[in-house]
C-alpha cells in the first residue's frame, strides 16, 4: 500500500521558525520588584544597586560575603532586564566560575539562589553562552541543588537545567549522564508539590527538553524512566503542564518505529487523543503532533491510535480555525489513509470523508497539500468500493481545481491520484463516466495544459493520462491496447 510520510522531508527550512513551536530556552525576567516574589525579604530593602561591572568582578573575587551577595544580586538584576541583558559582558568579565562556586554555598541560601538565577539567565542565551555556563562546571552543582531543602532553589535549578538541556542533544545527554533524572522525577513525586503549579510547570518543561532533539535521540533507558512520570503529568489539569508534557511525548514519537513503540506500549494514547480535543490550542498542537507521529509507524501502531479514538477527533481538527492545525490533522489523516483497507474503512465509518473533501476545497494551501496526500494514499490503498465512496463525496472537483496549484509535487500527486481513480473505474467498467466527470469539471483542460509543464515528471504524467484515457478516436497508441486479446483492440469511439 501507500507510503507513510515522516514529518521532516527536508532538513532545510526556508520559512520562519514556527511560531507555535515550544520554546527551547527561557530567561527568568523580573518585570518589577513585585514580580520578584521568589526572592527573600531582604532584597526589597536594597532594591537599587549601584555596582558597576568592574565592581562586581572585584566583589565576587574578594572575600567579603556581604559583597558576594550584593554583586551576585546586581549581576542577576542586570541579566533579568527585559531589554538587552548584558550576557556577553558578564561572560567576558569572567565571573561565571565564581557564580558556579556560589551554587555550593549551602551556608548562604540567598547567595545560592541569586547565583542560580544569574546562571539560568546566562544559560538561556545562545549556544556559546550556554556553553560558558556548562564549561564552568555548573551541571553537577545544579543537579545537586535539585535536592536542596529550599524549594525556590531547587526550582531555579530545574529551570537552569532546562535551559542547558534545551541547547541540544549533547548537553541533554551530558545532563542525563550526570544523573539529572532521578532527583527531577523525585521532585514530581513530592506530594507537597501538588499545590505548587508553577514549580511543576518548570519541571515539566525541563523534562520535555530532556526528551527533545534527535541525532542522536535521548538514550532509551532515560526515556523509559521519564515516560511513567509523563503519564502522571498528563492527568494534571493545568494547561501549561499538559502542553509541555504533550510536547515531550511528541518529541519521543518523532522517530523510527521502535521509538514509537516505547511510547505506545505505555498505554498513553487514549489520553493523548482526549487532549487533541482540548479547548486549549497550546495543548491541541503538541497532542496532535504526537499522534501524528504515532501514525507514521507500523500498521499496528497506527491501529492503536485508531483504537484510542483518533478518528473521532480528527473531523473537528480538520475544520479547526487555525490553518496549521488543519494541516497537521490532514497530514495525520494522510498517514492513516496509507494503511491497509480495513483502516481506510474505519476512516470512512468515522465520517472523515466529508471534512477531508471540504478541506481540499476550501482549506489554506498548506492544508490542501496534505489533504491531497491523504486522497492519494486513500486511492492507492483503498478498495474499489472505498474509492467509489470517496468520489461520491465529491472529491473530484476540488482535486481537479488544485491542478492549477503552483506546486509541482502537489500536481504530480494529483495526477497519480487521478490515475488511481481511473484504475478503479476500469475495474467497474466506468472509465467513460469518469472521463466525462473529469472533463465536465474542467480537469481535462487543466491536464492538457500540464503537458507543457516545465517539470518532466509532471508533463509525462499528464501526457500519460491524456494518451490513456482522453486520446480521441483518431490516434490511439497501439501499445496501450495490447491487452492480449485475439487480434482485437478496444477503441474508444463514440459510435
Amino acid at each position: 500500500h501507500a507510503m507513510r510520510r515522516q514529518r521532516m522531508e527536508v532538513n532545510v527550512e526556508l520559512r520562519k521558525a514556527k511560531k507555535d513551536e515550544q520554546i527551547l530556552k527561557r530567561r527568568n525576567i523580573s518585570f518589577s520588584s513585585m514580580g520578584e516574589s521568589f526572592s527573600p525579604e531582604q532584597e526589597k530593602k536594597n532594591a537599587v544597586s549601584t555596582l558597576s561591572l568592574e565592581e562586581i568582578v572585584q566583589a565576587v573575587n574578594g572575600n567579603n560575603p556581604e559583597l558576594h551577595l550584593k554583586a551576585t544580586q546586581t549581576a542577576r538584576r542586570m541579566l533579568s532586564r527585559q531589554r538587552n541583558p548584558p550576557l556577553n559582558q558578564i561572560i567576558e568579565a569572567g565571573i561565571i566560575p565564581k557564580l558556579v562556586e556560589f551554587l555550593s554555598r549551602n551556608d548562604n541560601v540567598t547567595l545560592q539562589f541569586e547565583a542560580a538565577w544569574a546562571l539560568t539567565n546566562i544559560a538561556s542565551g545562545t549556544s556559546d553562552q550556554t556553553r560558558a555556563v556548562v564549561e564552568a562546571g555548573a551541571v553537577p552543582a545544579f543537579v545537586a541543588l535539585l535536592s536542596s531543602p529550599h524549594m525556590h532553589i531547587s526550582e531555579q535549578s530545574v529551570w537552569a537545567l532546562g535551559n542547558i538541556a534545551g541547547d541540544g542533544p549533547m548537553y541533554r545527554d551530558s545532563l542525563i549522564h550526570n544523573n539529572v533524572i532521578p532527583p527531577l522525577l523525585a521532585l514530581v513525586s513530592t506530594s507537597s508539590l501538588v499545590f505548587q503549579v508553577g514549580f511543576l510547570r518548570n519541571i515539566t518543561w525541563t523534562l520535555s527538553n530532556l526528551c527533545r532533539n534527535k541525532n542522536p535521540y535521548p538514550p532509551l533507558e532515560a526515556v523509559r524512566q521519564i515516560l511513567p512520570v509523563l503519564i502522571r503529568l498528563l492527568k494534571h489539569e493545568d494547561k501549561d503542564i499538559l502542553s509541555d508534557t504533550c510536547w515531550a511525548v511528541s518529541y519521543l514519537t518523532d522517530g523510527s518505529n521502535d521509538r514509537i513503540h516505547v511510547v505506545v506500549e505505555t498505554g498513553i494514547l487514549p489520553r493523548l487523543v482526549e487532549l487533541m480535543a482540548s479547548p486549549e490550542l497550546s495543548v491541541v498542537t503538541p497532542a496532535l503532533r504526537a499522534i501524528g507521529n504515532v501514525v507514521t509507524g507500523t500498521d499496528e501502531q497506527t491501529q492503536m491510535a485508531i483504537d484510542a479514538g483518533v478518528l473521532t477527533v480528527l473531523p473537528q481538527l480538520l475544520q479547526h480555525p487555525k490553518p496549521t492545525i488543519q494541516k497537521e490533522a490532514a497530514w495525520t489523516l494522510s498517514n492513516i489513509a496509507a494503511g491497509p483497507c480495513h483502516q481506510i474503512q474505519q476512516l470512512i465509518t468515522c465520517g472523515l470523508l466529508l471534512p477531508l473533501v471540504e478541506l481540499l476545497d476550501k482549506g489554506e494551501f498548506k492544508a490542501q497539500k496534505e489533504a491531497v496526500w491523504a486522497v492519494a494514499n486513500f486511492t492507492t490503498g483503498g478498495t474499489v468500493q472505498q474509492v467509489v465512496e470517496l468520489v461520491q463525496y465529491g472529491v473530484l472537483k476540488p482535486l481537479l481545481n488544485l491542478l492549477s496549484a503552483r506546486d509541482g509535487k502537489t500536481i504530480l500527486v494529483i495526477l497519480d491520484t487521478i490515475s488511481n481513480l481511473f484504475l478503479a473505474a476500469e475495474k467497474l467498467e466506468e472509465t467513460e463516466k469518469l472521463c466525462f466527470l473529469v472533463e465536465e469539471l474542467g480537469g481535462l483542460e487543466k491536464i492538457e495544459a500540464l503537458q507543457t509543464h516545465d517539470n518532466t515528471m509532471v508533463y509525462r504524467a499528464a501526457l500519460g493520462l491524456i494518451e490513456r484515457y482522453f486520446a480521441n478516436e483518431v490516434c490511439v497508441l497501439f501499445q496501450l491496447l495490447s491487452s492480449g486479446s485475439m487480434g482485437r483492440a478496444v477503441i474508444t469511439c463514440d459510435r
Partner: protein
Amino acid sequence: MELSDANLQTLTEYLKKTLDPDPSIRRPAEKFLESVEGNQNYPLLLLTLLEKSQDNVIKVCASVTFKNYIKRNWRIIEDEPNKICEIDRIAIKGNIVHLMLSSPEQIQKQLSDAISIIGREDFPQKWPDLLTEMVNRFQSGDFHVINGVLRTAHSLFKRYRHEFKSNELWTEIKLVLDAFAQPLTNLFKATIELCSTHANDASALKVLFSSLIQIAKLFYSLNFQDLPEFFEDNMETWMTNFHSLLTLDNKLLQTDDEEEAGLLELLKSQICDNAALYAQKYDEEFQPYLPRFVTAIWNLLVTTGQEVKYDLLVSNAIQFLASVCERPHYKHLFEDQNTLTSICEKVIVPNMEFRAADEEAFEDNSEEYIRRDLEGSDIDTRRRAACDLVRGLCKFFEGPVTGIFSGYVNSMLQEYAKNPSVNWKHKDAAIYLVTSLASKAQTQKHGITQANEFVNLTEFFVNHIQPDLKSANVNEFPVLKADGIKYIMIFRNQVPKEQLLVSIPLLISHLQAESIVVHTYAAHALERLFTMRGTNNATLVTAAEMAPFVEVLLTNLFKALTFPGSSENEYIMKAIMRSFSLLQEAIIPYIPSLIAQLTQKLLAVSKNPSKPHFNHYMFESICLSIRITCKANPAAVGSFEEALFMVFTEILQNDVQEFIPYVFQVMSLLLEMHKNDIPSSYMALFPHLLQPVLWERTGNIPPLVRLLQAYLEKGANTIASAAADKIPGLLGVFQKLIASKANDHQGFYLLNSIIEHMPPESVDQYRKQIFILLFQRLQNSKTTKFIKSFLVFINLYCVKYGALALQEIFDSIQPKMFGMVLEKIIIPEIQKVSGQVEKKICAVGITKILTECPPMMDTEYTKLWTPLLQALIGLFELPEDDTIPDEEHFIDIEDTPGYQTAFSQLAFAGKKEHDPVGQMVNNPKIHLAQSLHKLSTACPGRVTSMLSTSLNAEALQYLQGYLQAASVTLL
C-alpha cells in the same frame, strides 16, 4: 594549444570560414574546430577573441561558438572523460561574469546563456563566488550591468519554479536567499526611487523598468517553493511597492505598438502573478495585503484599453480576481451590489466584446479562430478570462450576477434591433454573455452539462437564435450565424428535441455558407447532434426523422468540401462519417456517387497527406460505406474492390506511409466480406505483404497482422496448395514479432491463426521449430504478457492437435519437458490469462490434458493431475490475477523502440469477435464435467480417488456443482 597570437590568428581564420555560405568551405572548418576543442586553452582563446578581436563579426561568432562548446562539453558525465581541463574551467568561471557584463548586448546574451549552463552544473558548490560577484555588481550603479546580472540570476533561479522540493534544492535556495535577498531588496527600493527621479527621462526609465521586470521575476522564483523568512519579514516593503507600481502610469512608457506588450504591461502582469502566488500559497500571511491588491487590480482593469498588447495583462489580472472571489473568506470583498455591478459593467462586459482582431481572425485565420472558440485553446484570451470570472462570481452570487447581466443582454439586443447591420457586434456580445452565464459545466462530447437555472435557454433560442438562422441569406452576418450555430451545439442537451429537429434543416443549409467558420460550425453541430443519445441508448435523432433530408445533407456536405480552404476540413469529413453511421441503409442509393467522391478525395490527398484527422474520418467513411452496403448485399464487395484497389495500389507503390496502415485495414474488411474463397487479386498481393521492409514500421504491424489473419481465415487451403513456398516467410514474420517484447502478442495472433486454419500437414515440418523459438524467448526474456499469450497458444494447439500431440512435441524437444511446462508455467500462471475467449480456449485445452492424455494417468506426470485440475477450477472461479511484476511496469514505454508511432485504428473496420472453440464447446464447465465423466468410465475409481485424496475442499465443491449441472456422476 597556447594562448599565442598565432593561435588566435588561426582560430580567427577558421571562425570566419564557419560563416561561409559554401558548405565545402564551411564544413571542413566546423570539423576542424570540433577536432581541436578538446585542447587546453581552446575556450580561453575563444573568450580572448570575443573580447579583443577587431572584427565585430568574429566577436559574435566566437561568442556563439563558445556557448555551443560549453553546452556540449561542460557537463561531466559519470564514467566518461572530463572534456574540459580543470585549469580552463577555473579560468572560465573567473572571467565570464565580468566579460558578460562588459560586452555589447548581442554577446552578453550568449555569455549569459553560457553562465546558466555552467551554473546548472557547478552552482553553488563548485562556483561559490558567483553570487558575491553578481551581488557586488548591484553597487555599480550601471543599470546596463545590473540588468545583465539580473538576467543571469533569473536564468539560474527560474528552475525553482518547477523543481520538486529536495534537500539539495532547498539548501541552494537558502544559500541564494542569504546572499541575494537583501541586496535584491535594496536594489528594488533604489530602482523605484530612481524611477521617480528620472520620471521625465524616457531612456533611463526604460532601463530601470527592465530591471524592475527582472526583479519581479526573481521575486516569483525565490518565493515559489515556500515563503522565505526574509520575504515574510520584508513583505511590507515588497508588497507596498508592488502595489504602487500597479497603480503607476507614465506617458513616457506607453508604446504606440498595438500588438506588442510594453514594459509597463509586462511589469504589471508579473506583479499580478506575484500577488496570485502569494494569494494562493501564503494566504495566511498575505491576507492583510490582499484587499488592496483586489482594488488595485480591479482599477487597473477598468482603465486598461482594448488593444491586443494589454491582453496578457488583462487576462492575468482577471484570473487573479476570479481565483480570489471564489474563496469563502474573501466573499465580502465582492458582495456589495455596487461592486458587483461595477465589475460586471466595467470588467466583464468590455472584455467580452468582439474586437477588430477577432473579426480579422474570423475572416482570415479561421482555423485559429475555430481552435480558440470551439476547442478551448483560448486559455489566455480576455473573453475566456472574463468567462472564468463570471463563473467564479456565480459561485456565491449567481442570482444577482444573472440579474445584472440580464439587463445588459436586453439593452444590447435592443441596440442590435435598432440597426442590425451596424450594431451586430452588440448581439454577438449578448449571445456570448448568455452563453458564459448559463454554462456551468461542459464537455466536448455532451456540450453544456450543467446550466444556470436563472437563464431560460429555450426562450432565448426561439426568440434570438432561430430567427438569425432562418433568414434566407446564409451569408449575412456570418459572425452571428456562427454564434447561433455554436449556441445550438453547446446547449443541445438543454434545448428540447423538437427545437433541435427544427434546426437540422437550417444547419444543413448553412453548410453552404461561404464563411469557413460558418459551414464548419454547421458541420460540427450536425455531427454533434447525430451522436446524441436518447432513451435505450439509441440515437436521439433517428434515421427515419432524417429521411426527408438525406439527399440534401449528403450533397451539401460534399459540396462544402469544395469551398476554398475547406478541401481537407476535418469537421466536414467527420460529419460525413457520422451521417453515414446514422443514416445506414438510407445512404445505399447514393453509394456509387459517394464512393466515387471519396476515392477521388483519397487520390487527391494521398499526394500529400497533411491533415491526419481528416484522413482518418475519410477512411472511416469508406469503411462505413462498405459495411452498410455489403450487409444488405454481400456481392457488392466486388464493386468496392474495383473502385478502391486502383487507388490502394498507387498508395502502396508510392509508399504513402501515413495511409498504408489504413489501406491494410480496409483490405482486411473487404477480404472478410468474402464468403468462401479468396480472390486471386488478393493472392497476387500475398508475397508482397511478407516483405521485411513493411514490417519495420511499427504502425504497420497491427493492421498487417490483421490482414494476414484474414488471408489465413479465408485462404489457408489456397496458401497451402498454391503458395506453400511462402509458409517459411509467414513464419519468418512470426519469428520477428515474437522476438520483440512490444509486438510478441501480434506474433501469437498470427501463430494462432496459422494453427487454427492451416491444414496440419502443411505446417508439420515447422512445428518443432516453432516451439523451440518460443522456448528461447521464454528463457531470454520472460514477461507476463508473453506468458499469457503463450498459455493461450499451447492450449489452442492442444484443442486443435490433441493433448497427446502437445505432450509429445514438448517431450521430443527435451525429455520430461511437458511436466515442467505444466508445473512451472500452466499451473502457476493460468490465473493470469485475460479475455473471455482466451480463458475458454485454456479451459478446453486443459480439460483435454486432464482427460485425453494417457501419460497424465500412468506416468510420473500423474502427480500433476490434481494440481492441474485445481488450477482449472481456479481459472473458472477465482478473480483474474492482474498483478504485474514491478520491473515490467514500464516495458511498454521504455523498451519499445516505436513508442511514438501511433497506430491509427479504424473503428468502423473493426473485426468481429472470433471464438475458435465456439462451436465445439458451449459451456466449458459442463464440458469439463462431461470429459471427467468419460474418463472415469474408462478407468473406474481412479478419478474419484485422485479427487478425494488431494483436491482441496472448496475446489471439490465447485466441481460437484459442475457435475450436477451436467447431470453426470463420476464412477
